């Protein structure tokens, strides 16, 4: 029965550890809550004009305006919805083209120069992700003018970061044996890439691109807010003419488009993997 004997020292040690962990978690939570309290007092309490909102009835009245749908807007929705969808598709494909060289520069094992070009590739990935799509769209509207083109370019630039980062990681994790084998039988640089690297990274990259396409539909729906066509432009116009029922219709169209995109991407990803 010796094995059932419990060591009192071990029990007290465990209780001690548990107490210490408990205190530590408590301190972390206290710090977080104090910080949140500071944020609330700094932003919401100091910055909000409660009288202007008009109390609960005011808020309910403003929400109520959105609840009557403007069904008459339906025929005007079809073309912007198509535009939004196409902008997302073209933007994603263009983003793939842009991410190819970036991924090539930013993958440690295939980069042409590790000292100069590798950091540049990494920097481009971070740059693309850290600038919000609205900011990209603003820059491109000032560079190429209004229309669908700045939206497409903004979506492409914003997608580069994620796609090229995942692609570069996939390239870094490949099995080197096929590459060596192709080189050993005399394959040139292009053949090494096409037959050695591409088949290994292809499923990962395609799944990433489909995922990004799904997100890009969401992004292309707001490009119109800064002058780049699609559903965002219609949303902006309805909002500016205070046609709240029309705003709700546009939002429903966006929801429908996104659910559709999610379903398509679900099946595509299943087909790829």
């Amino acid at each position: 029965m010796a094995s059932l004997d419990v060591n009192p020292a071990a029990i007290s040690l465990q209780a001690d550890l548990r107490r210490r962990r408990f205190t530590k978690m408590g301190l972390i939570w206290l710090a977080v809550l104090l910080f949140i309290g500071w944020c609330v007092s700094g932003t919401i309490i100091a910055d909000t004009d409660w009288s202007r909102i008009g109390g609960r009835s005011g808020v309910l009245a403003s929400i109520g305006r959105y609840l009557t749908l403007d069904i008459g807007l339906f025929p005007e929705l079809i073309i912007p919805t198509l535009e939004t969808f196409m902008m997302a598709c073209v933007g994603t494909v263009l983003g793939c083209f842009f991410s190819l060289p970036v991924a090539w520069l930013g993958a440690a094992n295939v980069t042409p120069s590790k000292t100069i070009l590798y950091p540049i590739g990494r920097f481009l990935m971070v740059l693309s992700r850290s600038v919000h799509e609205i900011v990209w769209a603003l820059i491109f509207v000032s560079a190429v003018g209004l229309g669908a083109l700045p939206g497409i370019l903004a979506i492409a630039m914003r997608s580069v970061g994620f796609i090229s980062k995942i692609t570069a990681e996939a390239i870094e994790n490949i099995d080197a044996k096929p590459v060596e084998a192709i080189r050993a039988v005399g394959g040139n640089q292009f053949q090494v890439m096409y037959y050695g690297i591409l088949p290994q990274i292809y499923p990962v990259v395609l799944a990433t691109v489909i995922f990004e396409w799904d997100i890009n539909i969401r992004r292309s729906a707001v490009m119109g807010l800064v002058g780049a066509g699609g559903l965002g432009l219609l949303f902006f116009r309805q909002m500016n003419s205070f046609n709240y029922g029309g705003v709700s219709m546009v939002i429903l169209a966006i929801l429908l488009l996104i659910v559709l995109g999610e379903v398509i991407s679900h099946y595509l990803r299943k087909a790829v993997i």
Partner: protein
Amino acid sequence: MTEQAITAKLPSNGPTWSRYRYPESLYRFGTLLVVVLFLGYSLHFLNVDIAKLIGALGRLVGVVSDRYYPPDLEYVLDRGYLAAILDTLQMSFLGSFAGVCLAVPLAWFSAGNVTPHRVMFPVGRLGVISCRAIHETIWTILFVSVLGFGMLAGVSALTMFCIGFAGKLFADEIEAIDMGPVEAMQSAGANPLQVFLFAVVPQVRVAFTGIAIYTWDVAFRAATVVGFFGGGGMGWYLKRNVQQLENLRVAAIILSIIAMVLIAEFLSGYLRSAVNRAK
């Protein structure tokens, strides 16, 4: 063996090797053709000028060096702008905290394996999907129209964004847990809340903390632009200077956004690795 002898041995028009066999290669070609045709039609439908598209990146470089250089760095070191950065930071914290708190129950409802009731499942799913589907800028505009300009609208919009973002990741995490403890507690007669608290939470605690930190990182990126539509913070300065065509100041603001996002990303990466180490 000479070269001629080798070539003589091979059949003159034998099978040449190709990566894909006949039906598969046809399907692949067909898919590619459809995609290319669709893209071409899209470019036509959207009235995109191909020459402009090809020259766009060159034009971007030209425009940036012409109009946006040198950035007016003094403007972003001004006291008012630094206060706006602090506001943005506070907004992102509040939004992600509230969003993560609300996302946990929604994720619990929308996880197929531990959902408390059949009716709760679609409620949770629909809540998360509709928060995710609508872009944060649209949420901002809607909240501004209901709550007026200011940071309350920005925080609410970020909260919705974070519910959508964190809710999906949380639900995925819950669906991947080990079902052993859950079944053990259910067979001992625990109610769904007890199952969630004592069988699910201990398994996903560390992952949830990491996701919450990541959510803050992403929410900060979104918080830099909610001000553009009236939500307060850095975005409001961006909007004002864009409308006044103060391009040098816009360039400085964009640079400051990039710098802040980089700091946030570094911080969140550090915190996430610290959480993983302390597990």
